[in-house]
């Protein structure tokens, strides 16, 4: 049963979602999932996705006709309450729900939307094939080739850092269709069936121990032309077109997780601990200031996000703000993780089983600290983001 219809009273929505979270999120899911195998993890995330779908909370930001229809303020409430309720992260469906779907809504034909969107809602897993070994920060230099052959593209090349490719049904794939054109031109966006012949997926283990990244090899993979999104050679613009609002609301949920669960976890950690001097950690001025500083930064991040969402609603360009948020988020999280590992001392260096489906909120702080480097690297490094701010927002020369 759907927890709440779009378009109602915000406070009531909040109450409904909060109540649903209180009754539907298993109290012990973190303990159960700690040290889970990859298969157990995937099964758990599929179950959780189904729970969200059944309640109407999987795709609140989608258009109403496709199963969403919540206004941005409503989406904010839902994100906040999922965070507050300590919901598992929805990593498995993230690309489908937050990246692929908005791109499809924005740039695909009605037939394509009809073909793919219900699948995403119904639990098909998507992955995103953008980066390549030689196209990281310089993404536009990607070399995976697609050659038109009748009604099909034939794709050959290699992608990397592809989350969940090992279980994905579909891939949003950037390919080069015109090798003669300048590098931002000549790129096309395809939807590739991950069950096609010629695809090989090799997992990459990450520095903190998880293995949801992959290398994906394409060897003459056949992709029907009607799975091209947007025009040929226009893929760069299509891929950039993913709406900022969805990203902002996703990070808003993450920020609420930080402000509520992250800080709460840090307080609990400190409350159960004495500094080397014997002083209770929670009474130490340094520990207290660090907690307050991170709390304040999370609050400020929330304010930046809210201001950005307001601007999205008003139709103001928020490209620079996106880059600011990405940097700010990465730094706030890393600072908190570093602070906690700092006062934990050598005890914090002991190994613990991974809790992969919780992102950085695992309570295994050293691991979460290592994990936090990913935010400064993936999806555009903080250095590239600073270029974006300098060039696009401030107009500094290249």
């Amino acid at each position, binding site marked *: 049963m759907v927890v709440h219809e779009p378009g109602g009273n915000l406070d009531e929505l909040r109450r409904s979602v909060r109540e649903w979270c209180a009754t539907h999120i298993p109290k012990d899911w973190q303990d159960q999932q700690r040290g889970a195998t990859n298969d157990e993890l995937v099964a758990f995330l599929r179950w959780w996705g189904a729970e969200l779908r059944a309640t109407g909370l999987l795709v609140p930001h989608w258009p109403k006709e496709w199963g969403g229809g919540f206004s941005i303020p409503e989406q904010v409430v839902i994100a906040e309450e999922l965070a507050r309720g300590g919901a598992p992260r929805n990593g498995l469906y993230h690309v489908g729900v937050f990246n692929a779907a908005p791109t499809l809504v924005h740039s695909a034909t009605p037939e394509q939307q009809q073909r793919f969107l219900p699948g995403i809602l119904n639990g098909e897993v998507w992955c995103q094939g953008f980066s390549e070994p030689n196209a990281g920060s310089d993404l536009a230099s990607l070399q995976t080739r697609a050659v038109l052959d009748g009604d099909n593209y034939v794709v050959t090349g290699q992608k990397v850092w592809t989350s969940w490719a090992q279980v994905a049904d579909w891939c949003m794939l950037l390919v080069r269709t015109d090798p003669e054109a300048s590098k931002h031109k000549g790129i096309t966006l395809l939807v590739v069936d991950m069950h096609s012949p010629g695809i090989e997926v090799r997992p990459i283990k990450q520095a903190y121990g998880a293995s949801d990244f992959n290398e994906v090899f394409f060897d003459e993979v056949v992709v029907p032309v009607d799975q091209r999104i947007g025009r040929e050679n226009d893929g760069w613009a299509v891929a950039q077109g993913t709406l900022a609002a969805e990203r902002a609301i996703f990070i808003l949920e993450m920020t609420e997780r930080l402000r509520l669960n992250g800080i*709460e976890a840090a*307080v609990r950690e400190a409350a159960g601990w004495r500094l080397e001097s014997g002083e209770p950690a929670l009474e130490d001025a340094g520990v207290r200031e660090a907690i307050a*500083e991170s709390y*304040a930064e999370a609050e*400020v*991040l929330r304010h930046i996000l809210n201001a950005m969402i307001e601007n999205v609603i008003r139709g103001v360009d928020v490209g620079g703000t996106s880059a600011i948020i990405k940097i700010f988020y990465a730094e706030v999280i890393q600072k908190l993780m570093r602070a906690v590992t700092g006062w934990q001392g050598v005890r914090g260096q002991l190994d613990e089983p991974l809790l992969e489906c919780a992102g950085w909120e695992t309570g295994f702080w050293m691991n979460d600290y290592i994990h936090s480097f990913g935010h400064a690297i993936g999806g555009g490094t903080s250095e590239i983001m600073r270029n974006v701010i300098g060039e696009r927002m*401030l107009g*500094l020369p290249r």
Partner: protein
Amino acid sequence: MSLTVEERDELRSTARSLCDRKSPSERVRAVVADPPGFDRALWDEMVGLGWSSIHVPAAHGGSDAGYAALAVVLHELGRAMVPSPFLASAVLATSALMCSDNNALASELLGALVAGGSIGSVAFASTDGTYEVSRLTTGWERVDATVRLNGSSGFVLDADVADVLIVGACSDDGTPAVVAIDSASAGVRIEPAASVDETRRLFSVAFTDVVVAEERMLCEPGARAEELLDQILAVGVIAAACDATGATERMLDRTADYAKDRMQFGKPIGSFQAVKHHCANIAIAVEASRAAVNAAAVALDGEPNAWARNASVTSSYVGPACTEACGFGLRVHGGIGFTWEHDSHLYLKRVMLDEVMFGTPSWHRRRLARTVIESVQEEELQRS
């Protein structure tokens, strides 16, 4: 009745244009060199435009546009580093009276402040510059039916031109009180205490057997007085952060312009990533500070229970971020930025005073920690 986004944009552009015309930095430098250290004509014009009462309820003759509107004005005054009694009078004194329980007194004094016939300020810091009520260095006692003040307060803005002083005092038994006095009262001595930031005017105010009628108390002494002082402090913190954000935004604009114009090694220095990233970091500080102070100002129009927490959040982030940003702005300007002639140091000094004027970020973080930790512990109790 809060402003629409369009009205706020309009107010911003009016304010910026006035400040650009009437308070370019050469004018600021000239004005601070001679007494009284601010531009009285500009101050009158600001009052005439209704800025000083923009957040005051219509019942008291104000525009009723809320703190969100006041924040816009403060941002622009900071941007142009305008020296004026705005913070002392329009923000601190006016807010104190708006929060006061003594309606008759509030009506009387707000009327004069709104009309511009009168300037106010608040003396609520100790001579050490602390706002902890228990450490106030001005005392009060009841003598017959009057209140008597003795001691001194430090870091009082624009006290020399204030007609009315709102004074936070603490009795020997630790009971705080807040009273409004005429600054010309017998026993009041005002001494300048120049700050490194020349665009601000600080004073210490000594009280020797100053007699005040009981009716000049803004509220009951004790817990309510402490709460009122905390409210004034919260408004002060957020206002100073608005000012710092404005100044830093201007520093960003000037730094980015300089980075586009200044050539070294045959290229504009802004094309070098080290400079570009310094500029980007300043932009991050400005965008984040702007979001933080706007949210805090909007919240001042709502539930007063959250004021102290919001103020401490603001202090924790905005002050240090703006100080660091202005420091990097100065550095990007190279040798030029290190000269007295260039405005870099003026911005830096102004935001550094803003950062600590109403309590250091460290003190605010410790206050905030209390709130955050208590609320986590309450949540835990609820769950268990």
